[in-house]
């Protein structure tokens, strides 16, 4: 789909698109063909023609993490995901998953702020004490002493003033960030590079749905943590506890960091799209691997029919054999009954295997978005 939605300054030739189904908004490069929403996998993506002033959460991107996986690595990850599923859904095939792969950048807030604060804490300094262990053995000549060293912590109260500029403190720009982190794992932000519009030419950019106001408490926690660490360093201490501060923040500046991810999906038995997400740096794949109960039922039905036919024929053979007095026919019929029962029992196996597999996968299931 080529969009003609509104564009945003600082983002190059990309337009705003909005999914009518899941209410998610993206920036879509104008040359990028997108067939389905990378969130709900519907075809509900539509251009959004609004003034960017009406998008209070959107800030220019400052940096991005490049996609670090080659095409082969991504395909290999997809193949590994699809491998080993007993009676997989028809749609769960590596080729289809690869065809539907969509590169997406997820946003994260980066905040710069100047902090002035007074603080107090207890700083802990490691020190070694010398102690002793004594052993007495009547048969080995009496006492033996061993000197041991034990590390302890000495705590000292300290107070101080802090005036520091902090850069690129990260905070979630999506309400779903905990799910993303749980599913995909952490991103190596050390690989961040300055953002240029052309770097996002092949990927959709998810727009933040968490306002800076909502994200600020998280930033404050992070700033506090960073400041506490720096105060510990300033005191050349090994530990710090009971850190309290009275901060004043100034010059807050919000930008975005873009995190790489691939999104694809497969349709389950009911035709519902099941998301499969791939970490753009590590290649970690996350998604629910489901076996097809429909295929299992079909296989079980076939086996049941075969068993029924076999049992019927065998019972007839036994009856005829006893009527004619042919022991061999009777024996053949009896064997047929046994085989038929065996086949009937095995008809339950596909259902059981699929049920157990889906049950085991459900334990790992993490609902994304």
């Amino acid at each position, binding site marked *: 789909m080529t969009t003609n939605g509104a564009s945003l300054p600082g983002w190059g030739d990309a337009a705003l698109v909005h999914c009518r189904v899941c209410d998610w908004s993206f920036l879509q490069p104008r040359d990028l063909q997108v067939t389905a929403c990378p969130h709900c996998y519907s075809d509900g993506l539509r251009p959004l023609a609004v003034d960017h002033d009406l998008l209070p959460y959107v800030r220019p991107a400052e940096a991005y993490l490049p996609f670090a996986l080659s095409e082969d690595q991504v395909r290999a990850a997809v193949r590994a995901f699809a491998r080993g599923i007993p009676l997989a859904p028809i749609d769960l095939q590596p080729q289809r998953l690869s065809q539907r792969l969509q590169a997406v950048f997820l946003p994260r807030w980066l905040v710069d702020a100047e902090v002035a604060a*007074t*603080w*107090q804490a207890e700083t802990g300094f490691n*020190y*070694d*004490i*010398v*102690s*002793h*262990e*004594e*052993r*007495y*053995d*009547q*048969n080995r000549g009496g*006492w033996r*002493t061993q000197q041991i060293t034990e590390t*302890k912590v000495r705590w*000292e*109260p*300290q*107070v*101080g*003033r*802090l*005036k*520091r*500029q902090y850069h690129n403190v990260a905070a979630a720009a999506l309400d779903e960030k905990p799910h993303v982190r749980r599913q995909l794992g952490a991103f190596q932000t050390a690989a961040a590079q300055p953002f240029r519009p052309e770097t996002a030419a092949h990927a959709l950019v998810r727009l933040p749905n968490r306002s800076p106001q909502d994200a600020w408490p998280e930033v404050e926690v992070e700033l506090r943590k960073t400041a506490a660490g*720096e*105060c510990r*360093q*300033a*005191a*050349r201490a090994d530990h710090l506890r009971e850190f*309290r*501060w*009275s901060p004043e923040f100034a010059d807050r500046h919000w930008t975005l960091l873009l995190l790489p991810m691939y999104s694809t999906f497969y349709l389950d038995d009911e035709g519902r799209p099941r998301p499969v997400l791939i970490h753009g740096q590590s290649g970690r794949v996350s998604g629910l691997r489901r076996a097809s109960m429909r295929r299992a039922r079909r296989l079980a039905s076939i086996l049941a029919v075969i068993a029924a036919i076999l049992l019927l024929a065998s019972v007839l053979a036994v009856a005829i054999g006893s009527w004619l007095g042919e022991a061999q026919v009777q024996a053949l019929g009896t064997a047929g009954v046994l085989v038929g029962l065996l086949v009937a029992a095995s008809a339950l196996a596909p259902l059981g295997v699929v049920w157990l597999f889906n049950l085991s996968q459900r334990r790992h299931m993490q609902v994304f978005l």
Partner: protein
Amino acid sequence: MPVCFPPPGYVRTESAVEGIELYRQAPELLAHRRIETFDCPQCAGQRAYSVADGGLSCVNCGYYEPPSRPMVGKGAESFEFTVETMTRVARGWGHARKDLHCQYCGAHTTLPPTLLSYSCPFCGSNKVIQRDAPQDALRPRFLAPFALTEGQCQETITAWLRGHWLAPAALKRVAHGARLAAIYLPFWTIDATAHANWRAEVRRVRRIGGKTRVVWRWESGKVTQVFDDWLVPGATHVNPRLLEVVQPWDLAALVPYEAAYLAGIQAQAYEVTLDAAWESARRAMREQVRQRCRGQASSRRMRNFSMEMQYRDENWRYILLPLYLASYEHNRRIYQVAVNGQSGKIGGQRPADWRKVLGLTLAWLLPSLLAALIPAYFLPPSDLALTVSVLGALLFVAGLAFTVYMVTTALRMEGKGR
């Protein structure tokens, strides 16, 4: 957060991070404290610690200044056995003192600079070399002030010297002339908690089928013992037995070290290092714990006894305890007397009058011997002669026993016997 910044008692300290100011509690300025003088503010005379009043008194005009620091007793701060603590411990005596080295017995003593005449309190020798007291020695943090005045001590010593019938009569004159020195002796107090696990084969006797059989059975147990303020003398020039005799010390009377307490009083720096003191204390502690472990067993007869023991919460203090030392010369021998500066308990060596011992021995043994022999050899046999002989023999044996008692008593007086 503190309303005023920085809070009182905090001083700025170096920060390793730009943009962060750091304030810490001002350390107690103990290292190389300023040199204090004890000039009287009224008459410019010299003040000295007054045992009777517990403060500084001017010897000229009687100006009195009470001590400024409260008693801390057994709650006095103790230190862990760390190298860092050792270096952090305050150093020096805090006031100018002279260090004297006795060429006769090797003892080191420090004393105020105003003290002009000096003889070694340990041996009475006046062969001493004077030098400045080192400021880099560990400084005691607590001391127990003298509770006994010099006069009271002198009376105690005089009574003690005169108080023994075997003491020579000349000692009564010496008692007045005994050189008395009030001195603070160094001690280490050591706290520790010992946890021990033991096992041993214990002998049990059982009667099986009318026969007695010895059975060795394994037993084990645990012992936890807390050692509080284990005292180890820091001085080597005082007879350890003397220090044992004058114990105990009342550590509840400990006060924070203040130079004023040493004004006009001698003090000795430690000669036994902390390491050595701790080792000595450990040896004694572990033996106590071992005895307790053995006591837990169901029988005293055991074999293959073994135990493991760990020390926890090991702490130490370096303190000064008050002692009056007197040394006097008798028959060209130096005798030492010590008096506990708190309780007045006395211990020491007294010369025995060996002529008195000999005289009494002869006075008893000779007549009894003669009484035993003369009737036997020179008198015709009779009941009376036999009775006198037997009585003489009995008296002779009693005389021998008395002689042994006198000799051991005399040796004990001189510090030679047990």
